[in-house]
Structures are given as C-alpha cells and as structure tokens.
C-alpha cells in the first residue's frame, strides 16, 4: 500500500469552491493532484447518484465543496448538498464502505488557502483509509 495515490473527486460549486480553487492557482498555492475537480453551478446540483457513481467508477474519496453556510449563491443549495452527503454516508455504511470517504466542505470564493488545505487534509485522510474497498477487491480478483 506504499504507493497508494488516492483518486479523489471534488464536486465544486461555481461561485465559491471552484473560484477558490482558481484563487489557489493564482496565488500559486499547491495542493495534491489527487483531487479532481468537477464544476457544478451549485453544490445543491450534486446528486446522490453522482457521488455513488464516482465511487463505483473507482474514486477513493469524494467531496462536495460549496459556499459557506448562509452564503450559498442559491440560498440553500449547500445545505441540501450536506443532506445528500449524509445520505450517501449512511448508505456506504450499509454496504461496508467507510462513510468518511465522502465529505462536505464549505468555503468562500476568496479562500484559496482553505481550498488547498481541504484538498490536503482529505487526500491524507483517504490515503490513511486506503483504496476504495470495492475497487481494491476487484483489482485483487482480477489479479488472481
């Protein structure tokens, strides 16, 4: 497991998180390349299925990044996203996958540092958890 480089999908809302990611870039703040950003208009657009499919396709972790609480460009999309993340966490628990693989984070558009910090922390957390058990088992099965 030494060489395990997790693949993490980050669904980022256009108005805050995606902008924060750009901001991190323009400030040249590095963060792990493990994090793959998918832009959505609002974190409330992130469907339970999107998160599930990301994991099913092989992501080791998924997080939804939205605006700060009370700051959602679309009023409450971030709160809805949080509820869906919780729903996925409960479902993952039912199928014996660590619910911590899925997470919700919030930040404002100017928080390039926070974006980078979240990317680091989540990457490290997933690195510790190891590969997505579904993907790992399949790879083992294929090897055998």
């Amino acid at each position, binding site marked *: 497991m030494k060489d395990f480089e997790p*693949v993490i*999908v980050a669904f980022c809302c*256009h108005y805050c998180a*995606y*902008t924060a*990611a*750009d901001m*991190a*870039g*323009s400030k*040249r*703040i*590095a*963060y792990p*390349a493990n994090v*793959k*950003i*998918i*832009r*959505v*208009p*609002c974190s*409330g*657009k*992130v*469907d*339970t*299925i*999107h998160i599930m*499919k*990301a994991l099913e*396709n*092989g*992501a080791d972790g998924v997080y939804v990044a939205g605006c700060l609480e*009370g*700051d959602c*460009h*679309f*009023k*409450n*999309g971030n709160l*809805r996203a949080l509820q*869906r993340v919780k729903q996925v966490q409960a479902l993952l628990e039912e199928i014996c996958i660590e619910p911590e693989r899925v997470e919700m984070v919030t930040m*404002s*558009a*100017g928080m390039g540092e926070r974006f980078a910090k979240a990317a680091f922390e989540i990457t490290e957390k997933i690195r510790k958890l190891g590969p997505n058990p579904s*993907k790992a088992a399949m790879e083992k099965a294929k090897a055998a």
Partner: protein
Amino acid sequence: MQNQNSIQTGKVLVVGGGVGGIRAALDIAESGGDAVLADNAYSIGGLMTQLDRTFPTNNCDLCTLSPHLSESGRELHIELKTMTEVTGIQGAAGAFEVTLKTRPRYIDVQKCTACGECFERFPECVRFTPGLDHRAPTCMRYPQATPWAYSVDMEKCNDPEALEKVCKMGAILPEDRAEETLIEVSAVILAPGASIFDPAHLDHFGKGTYPNVFTSLEYERILSASGPTGGILERPSDGKQPERIAWIQCVGSRGIQKGAASYCSSACCMFATKEAIVTRERFKDDIETVIFYMDMRTSGKDYELYYQRAKNEFGVRFVRCRPHSVVQNPENMNLEISYTQDEKSENITEEFDMAVLSTGFMISEETRKMAEVMGIELNPHGFAETASFTPIETSKPGIFVCGMFESPKDIPETMVQGSAAACKALSIPYRGKPAPDHKLRAPADDAAENQWDDYDEYEEFPPERDVTGETPKVGVFVCDCGYNIGGVINVPEIVDYCKTVAGVETAVAVGHGCSGESQKMMESLIKEHQLNRVVIGGCSPRTHETKFQDMVRRAGLNKYLVEIANIRDQDTWVHGDQPEIAANKAKELIRMAVSRVWLSIPLADHTLPMNKDILVVGGGVSGMTSALALADRGFKVFLAERSPRLGGMAANIRKTLEGEDVRSKVEEMIERTMNHEKIQVMAPAIIVDHAGMPGMFTTGVQSGPQMFYSSIKHGVTILATGALPNRPSEYFLNEHDAVITQLELDERIEDNPESVKNAENVVMIQCVGSRTTDNPNCSRVCCQAAVKNALRIIKINPDARVIVLYRDMRTYGFQEDYYKKAREKGVVFVRYGLEDTPVAEADGDKVNVIFKEPILGVKVSVNADILCLSTGFISDDESTEDLGFIFHLQRTDDGYFLEDHVKLRPVDLPVPGFFVAGTAHAPKNIRESIVQAQAAAGRAQTLLSQDTINLGASVAKVDGKKCAACLICVRACPYSVPYINADGYSEIDPARCHGCGICASECPAKAIQLMQFQDDQILARLDGLFERMN
C-alpha cells in the same frame, strides 16, 4: 418605472488605444453609444501589452487584456482607426468637428490574414520591444494585436515589388496614401498615455553604454514569453543567467536626475516590486533581487500587503538610499552600485549582474502637440489640467481625459478613469446636425420604435450549423499561455496524447488561445475538419469561457459545444514545481472535458426585460456623484443614506491639498441631489433584505424618521458606503487636548486659525493605526493631508516649527510638488522605523514627542503644542459585513468590498449588477472617489443600456413524460419557480430559473435536467477521469 436615457448622444472620439482608451470606448459601445478609437500606433493596446505580468496577481496580462482587445476589435459600435492622429478640431461640446489624419499602412486590413508570410520573407527585424531589437518593415506589435493585420514601413523597404508579390491575398498596397477624414462627435476623450523617461543621457547609470543595464519596461519584455528572448533571462554581455539583479527607483521622477520630472510616477514602486517577485518566483534562490528606493509608495488597495510579501515571502531585499552611480566592471561586465544610507556614514558598493532602472512616465512631445490642437490647458508638467471635483474634465467643455495624461497612475486607476470618461462623454447631448451615420440613442417615448430594431444588422456571427445527428467530432486546442502553461508542461506532448483520446478528431497547440491569431486558427480548423465539438485546454472557464464560446460561434457552432479544461489555474499554476504530475493532470482534465463535450448539445439563451432604475447605497460624495451622473442621464435613482444627512466624510473636510474649498462643493452637491427630480433620497435608511438578479433586483429598505419598510425594484446597485476616519487610542488621542487628528487639524486651521497661530511646535506622526498588524494597509490619504496641513500652518504662522515623523512619504503623482514645497518652506520630515516608533509624554497642556533622529542616531524630544496624528481610514467593518451578507458580496480581510478583478475590473463587484465607488472600495481621496463614482455610473450604464437580461442557457428542463408530478421540485426550488401545469407535470419558467440545479438533483423521477450540467454530462467527466482504470 422604465426611465431611459433621454439624451441623444453623438459619437465620441477616443484618442489613444491603451487600456484606458479601450475601456472608455468599450463602455461607450456597451452603453449603446458609438466611439471612434484613434491611435497613432499600428495597433491598439498601449503600454500594458508590453508588460509580462501585472501586480498584484502576477498574472500575465496579455491574457487578461486580450478579451477586451478583441471585444473592442469586433464591437461594431467602435470604429477603430490605427496609425491615425488628430489634426484639427472645430465647434463646441455636443458638436465637435474633428479632422483625423491616417498614415498609410501599406496593407489592406480587410484582406490581410496575418499569415506572416511577408514577415517570414522580410525578416530583417521586428520591433517587439522598444530598444532591444531593430525595426522591421513589417511590424506586428504583439501576438494579440488588433486590428488583425500587419503593417509595413515602406521607407525601410528596399524592394516593394517583391514584398507585394509575397502576399497571396494581395493585401500589400505599395501605393497606399495618407487619408484625412472629418468626423462629427459630441465629445472627445483623450487617452494618449505616457511615454517612458529615457535615461540614456544619465551618464552615471550607464544606460545605453553598459549592456547589462535596462529600463524596467525592457526587463519586462525580457521576462515575457513573447519578448525578444522568448522569455529567456540572460545577460546581453555574456548570455549568462544573472545571479544578482538590482532595481534603482525614481529614475526620471521626483526631480532626482537631470531632466527628470519633479512629480512621482506613482506606479514604479509596485512595478519594480512585481518584477522582483516574478523573478524570485521563477528563479527562486538562483537570483538575488535588491530594490534601491527612497520611499516605498505602495498605497493602492492591498499593495502594502504585496510589498510585505515581497520582503517576507519572496526575500526581495529593499534598501532605502539614493544610489549615486552605476559603474561597469570592465572585466566581467558586472555593475557596481554605490550608495550611502541615512544611518551609516560610509559609502557602500555592491556588485550586480544586471541593473534595472525604474524609469518614470513623461508626456511626449506628440501628446503636447495633440493637446495644443485640442486647445486644452496643460499643467506645468504637460499633463491635462483638471480639478478635484471635476477630475477628468479638461479646461475645454466636452473634452475629457483619462489615464496617464491626467496624472501618472497604474492600470486599475486608468481603468476606473476610462469608465468615468465614458460616463462623462455620454452625458454630453449631441447638438450637431443629424447625420445618417449617427446612430442616435432614442429617448424613452419612442424607444420601442427604433432603439434596438436595427440591432440585427450588427449581428456578426454566421448562422449556426445544425449538428444534430452528426457523430461528435472533437477538436482539442491546447494553450501554452506563454510560461503559464508551456513553462510547466510540454504542450506538444500533451497535444500528441490528446490525439490518442477516443473521439478526438484533431488536437493542436494554439499558443495563446485567446489571441486573435489563435482564434482565427481554431476557427479555420473547426471548419476544415468539420468539427462539431471543441475542447480548449487553457485557463479557467470562469474568465475565458465567453471568449471561446464566441470563437466557436464564429466558426458556425452553437456556443455550448465548447468545453474548457482548466489546465492553467487548476493545474500548471498549482503544480508548477512538479511538471510530470502537472502533465498527467492536464491529460486527465482534457480527457474529462472530451468525454463531457461528446454529450454537449446546442442550447439557446433565455432573456428577460431590464429594470432601469438604480439603487445607490451611501450618500457621501461618491454616492451623490454616481446618483447625479445617472439621474442627469434620465435614469431614476434611489439614494439610500444611513445617516439623516447627505455628505459623508467629505462634509468634515475643509480643503484639498491643492487648496480647493471642499465644503461649498459638497453643499452644492447635496443641494443638487436633494432637488433632482430623478433622485429619490432615502435618509436615514438601512438596507434590510435583497433578492433578484441584475436587471431585476428587489431590495428592502427601512427609511425615514419612522423607519418604514419599502421594497425597491432596481436593475443595478452601486455601493458607495464609504469608510470611517480611524481613531486608534494611541499617543493620548481622546485623552490630551493637544493631540488631534489630521481631520481635526484641517477643521481647526480653517475655522479657528488663531489656535494654531501661536503654536511653536507642531509634530505630526504618520501611519498611526495604518500599516500595523490590526490595519495592515496604507490609508493613502494621510501623507498628502500632513503636507497640506503643514503648508497651511506655515502660511498662517511662518515661525512655527512643523515636524513630520513618517515611515515612507507617499505623496504620489503631483502631490510630490507639495511635499517638495513643504520641505522648502522649512517643514522638517524625519523618518522613523517600526523598531523605533516615536513616543509621547504629556507635559501640561503640551506633549513631549521623543523620536530618533536617523542621521545623527540620537533621541530628540520636542515639546509640541499640537501633536497631530495621521490616522487615516479604517473600513466601516460593521456596514460592509452587513451589506456583504445581504448582497452576497466578498470583502477583503480588512473589510473593504472586494472587486471582481483588482486590475481590470476595479469598479465591478463579483456579483453581476453591483458596482463600488469611493472609500468602500479602498482608501482614496476626494478626487479619486469622484472618478470612481463616475466610473461606477458609467459601468452601470453598460448594463442599463440593454433592454433585456441574458439569463444564459443553464436552466432546468422538465421531461413531462418522466415527471411524476411529485411536487418535490416545487418544494425544493429556492425561488419557487416550478409548478405543476394544467397537463399535470412540472413546468419551469426558463426566464425565472436561476440555474442552480437543485430541482434536478432532487427529482426522484430524474425528469429534470439542468442544461449544460445534465447528469450524463457530469457522469461523462467521471468516465473520462476513470478511463485509464477501466
């Protein structure tokens, strides 16, 4: 409710095609006016296009400017006249007749495709930068040049016939002649910019003699990827990469050298700091950077933080001194710089590999001549004469000024003035004879008739090609963005990889994809390969999506068939030091975009009618200026002021530095505002709620003595809420009667001159409560206030001893003259450092001020009758926090509103439809506040001139066949848009849909899809990402 511009505006002539002129012309065009943009050069762009990167974002500005350039190039309300100068003007405001003379270009701009064939064959030399290379007969100024055509210097051409034959398009016109045109305009904007001080005559700096001495602009070109060395930093003397570089400030400014201007050029401190940072950023510890300066004048918004970062993060060394000479070591061609410092008596000599002279800005002879033709008055420095309350108005009504020609300044200030000039120019009613080519903006009454009927004729896009049924053919275009992308990853290798990605028809490297040249290339590739989907590997779609959407539109595709992979902002900028990782990520991002674009479908935008009323928040000078500017144009303005009376902070100021009477001007302004039939003043008033989008905002205001609630409908919002006078509890302020602030001193000198008449000693301490940990930025106005008040005290009481204790004297621009005058009049200026701040002790009704005399190095105590603290500004944190929350606006760490782009959009706030003016944006003086307020009014008009609001295509769509009418969308929508229609399924009005997609992700029947973000499109990105695994 619908108030429209009731003034007929004629054309506006904009002289000068730098950023200021471009901004002005664009704002005029966007506001529905027509502009003629004339520039003496071969193409527009001005100085800024020669900069590699700009502060404080350190972006390469070619890319940030170019969208403006091509907007300008394509905008049919702007007539572009390059190689053109003004030779005569007749008439008056409202009806000027201007004669323009256009030199021959020898190239037919319509035919030239800028293929470069002529340049290839006559490659003698190309003038890309001033001074570093020789001149070419065929000259392209820079890759994004507009117009999109070369120009020929026929005098340098030995064989015109051969040259003519080279061009397959027949665009070369050896017989081209100069041409004179007479145009009728209602107003003129002068934006000729400045030229750079030429230090060649200064023997002691060796410019022109020593190969390794440059001007800062030359150094900028060397760093530039499109510069003469292709971005490679090496010494001309031996081709080696330098190890030590020195910057010498104030070359040609502050009257230091022979022939130097006496004013401060304002931008050079930041300019040099940026160059040093960029150098350190790129070369890390391989290159040592030192800046020799007199005062660091980083007084712009957040500039002080940038300066601190340069020192503390990038390790740029700052040395306060005046280097007296640069001497070349003949052996190694190194440069020895000698200087002395205040605190040390000995002469220090340091050796450098390269020296950069921070040369200041001058007004060129050409500009002076133009001013003469125009008949406007100039100040003694050759800049246009203006006044604090009419900061962009020249001495001749109807002629306005913006940018450097008003005073030396940096890009954001120039952008602000550009917008302000547009606003002022548009306010001049057209009085000339009606001419068919004057597209008059109609008044409200008959607006419907003709205002936008003829808009279709401006339509420049070809019809959209119907791609339904076609198998997707994807073209991938990868930008290098100079070093931004190309310096980190190997773009050709990425392109080769893209060709292997399933579904990709072709992949090409396009350099600066945003440049005119690259755009043309992509257009033709799209047509040639019959591409029906496009992926751009470039910068963030947040900034450049529109540009590439327009590009594919020109190529005949629907604008939603392009997808941008953000391989710059989210890849090469992030993983700059890990090229391999960056390359892999770039491939991933492009793969994801290809997979996504495969499923893109053509979409149409939705529109809504525009409410043309304006809400201005804040009734100080800025707010009133914006309100009056818009109301004079016929717009209805709601002006909400928190306090019962208008006037703001300026109501407490008596005089400007230049000696103008502030009080009477402010009173006059209040009078006009209160009585203006188009302005509804609400005071006292507080904002309590807000909703909507640009063109249809609704804001709840409680106002009047009873604080009644009313709901205002408006199309745009201008925030001019100001800042607060800072009043930190330091140096016995509020405790001892002898301790006052500059504001109080100003009042006392004016209202009670007797009280200062007998003062023997007046001590002023600068930077009290500014440039500190709590309030890290510079308050900008305090140095000028100190100089202003010192001069006034000396005038009343010539025997008074006035001592100003300062950290850096920041009397930028022409304020330097007053600083100089104060020194001549005997005002003593003593520098202090943070390690040795002055101390005060109460002494009866006086105060002893103890400070260190830096030259002697001893402590001195002065028994002061008045201790005046320069406390400057502090943001109105509570107000901006509340308003930021209500309006969803971002703020800086120190509580000012954060603009959309610090460089290029300094008046626009990130939330569309919001603009900022005055000290709510950053500390500034009255003159600067008024300019920004006029600019805000101008920017607002660009929105208000539209009759409809474009809502984009990202709206939710319901598939009625799948809908179970469960009402989940009806309940989930934050804006209550969906409803169950008569047919029994959910319906979403695209005009009201905000495009968040919450309904789509909640819908249990998956009957709702958000256009542009459909589920399969989002999942396609995952497929693209995980392709390598599966």
